[in-house]
């Protein structure tokens, strides 16, 4: 049992964004959370990663309850996320940005005297080559293309060597070519690095292309959970999507 949410609920005042969602994510899976707009996907994401505090319910990771842990602690346990609105470092170079992930994970951030650039050169280079940003290592974060920024964020998260990688709409705003590249990257990392990946998406081709398990949310409630075939066949899901690209 890798990650589990037990009847997790989040209320914003009177609005119940996530309603008693109990879900299990299996280690090594690529697990998608989908649903129409307002379904609570991002909020669920935020509950798992610690961006929001749950109103009730539990989040359990590797057997340990993390419901009340702040975001940074969850990251130290092995959960890292990317953001829907790409979150990178505008005025740091691509190299420095990826380095930051490693510095944090390898716990050298309280080193006050050595030169930061001397650390983890090999690991940073390897990550940059894996995501295909090696030739832009010295470019500033805000000078690269949108698709590259998304890849950069992915690279940064890889620096923390996570066990569970949560990607919030990883192909948002990407062209079809960039989407294909991103998809194959995600698949590659899942296989090569043994990452468990949890992601939300609107692009159904991505979802059915790489997900091993899919969970469907509708107005905060879990309405389907299973393999892509099971979800595709589910009447509930078809009703909710009203003949959408499922």
């Amino acid at each position, binding site marked *: 049992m890798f990650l589990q949410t037990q009847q997790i609920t989040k209320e914003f005042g009177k609005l119940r964004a996530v309603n008693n969602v109990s879900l299990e994510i299996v280690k090594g899976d690529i697990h998608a959370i989908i649903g129409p707009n307002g379904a609570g996907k991002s909020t669920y994401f935020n509950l798992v990663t610690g961006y929001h505090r749950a109103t009730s319910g539990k989040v359990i990771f590797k057997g340990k309850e993390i419901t009340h842990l702040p975001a940074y*602690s969850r990251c130290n346990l092995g959960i890292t996320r990317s953001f829907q609105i790409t979150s990178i470092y505008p005025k740091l170079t691509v190299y420095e940005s990826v380095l*930051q992930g490693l510095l944090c994970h390898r716990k050298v*951030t309280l080193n006050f005297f050595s030169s930061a650039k001397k650390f983890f050169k090999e690991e940073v280079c390897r990550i940059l080559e894996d995501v295909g940003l090696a030739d832009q290592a010295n470019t500033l974060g805000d000078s690269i293309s949108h698709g590259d920024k998304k890849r950069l964020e992915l690279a940064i998260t890889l620096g923390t060597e996570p066990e569970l990688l949560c990607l919030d709409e990883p192909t948002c705003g990407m062209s079809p070519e960039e989407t294909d590249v991103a998809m194959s990257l995600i698949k590659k990392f899942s296989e090569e690095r043994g990452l468990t990946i949890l992601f939300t998406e609107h692009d159904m081709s991505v979802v059915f292309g790489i997900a091993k398990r899919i969970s469907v949310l509708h107005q905060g409630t879990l309405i389907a959970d299973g393999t892509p075939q099971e979800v595709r066949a589910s009447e509930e899901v078809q009703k909710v999507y009203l003949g959408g690209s499922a």
Partner: protein
Amino acid sequence: MLTNQTEKKDSIVKRGWWLGLLFILFLIAPSILSEFYLSILCEALVMSLLALSFNLLFGYMGQLSFGQAAFYGLSGYTVAMLVTKVHFNFWLSLVAGVLMAGVIGLVVGYFCVRLRGIYFAVLTLAFGQLLFVIIYKWHNFTGGDDGIQGVFPPDFLKSPTAYYYFILLVFTASAYVLWRIIQSPFGQTLKSMRENSERTEFLGINIARYQLIAFVIAAGFAGLAGAIWVPFYRSVAPFYLMWIKSGEPVMAAILGGPPIFLGPVLGMFIMTFFHAWVLGFTIYWPVVMGALILVIIFFLPGGILGFAHEKLKERKEKLNLTKGQP
């Protein structure tokens, strides 16, 4: 793929050359300058240390602190009181001053880092003001409005030239330490917090904790500045902790350029001499300072060095473009 190693070495050599020349100039300063200008130079160096401490928080961490003068002044008072009232050892008094600044920095910082941005800034001002009021009103203990006089350094440092070299030594050593801190993984983390603290938080960093550590370091160096200044000037007064004083490192940093390490130093040198000149014919320094801050904000956003850096970059890019022409 990594930074062009030879390029890097070139820039270090270039920078090293400049710095070396500057340092030699500073070494021979007492023989060319009159005592008056030498004391202004002393003030410039001490205040530059204060400005560097401020810029750790502003340029590198991205937070505005309007209370650095409080740590500067508190340390000065600690030294003054230990030296004059208890006849404590001079050197240990300096250490005590720095420690006092650091401890108060820890207490104040603990509350300030619960907030960010604007709130953090105003809270630092508020605490600075609180400390000022405490010093000002505690007449029996601190002398209140009168301040404390008669703070003398040991005999061998009594001459302006000797003390100047002492200040230069402390400044150079402190600048070096701050430089190392900024280049370190800790410093890199601060920069990442400035660029996007949320991203860094979600990489596993307890932002408040790191901000607090930086705050204490900054307070400590501000305290060091105050500790070495008071014996030079032979006295300390409440206005050292005032909010107006806190504005001086802020202005120096934005004038010189917060993104460049020595930017605040340049800004502070200009400001100190300018301040001395202005005080020659008017007491209305705050309005000049305010007007200058507005000018910098509107016309010189990156400060002098930031502006120069941008211009150099533009020239380099133009050269690269023309090089790339078939």
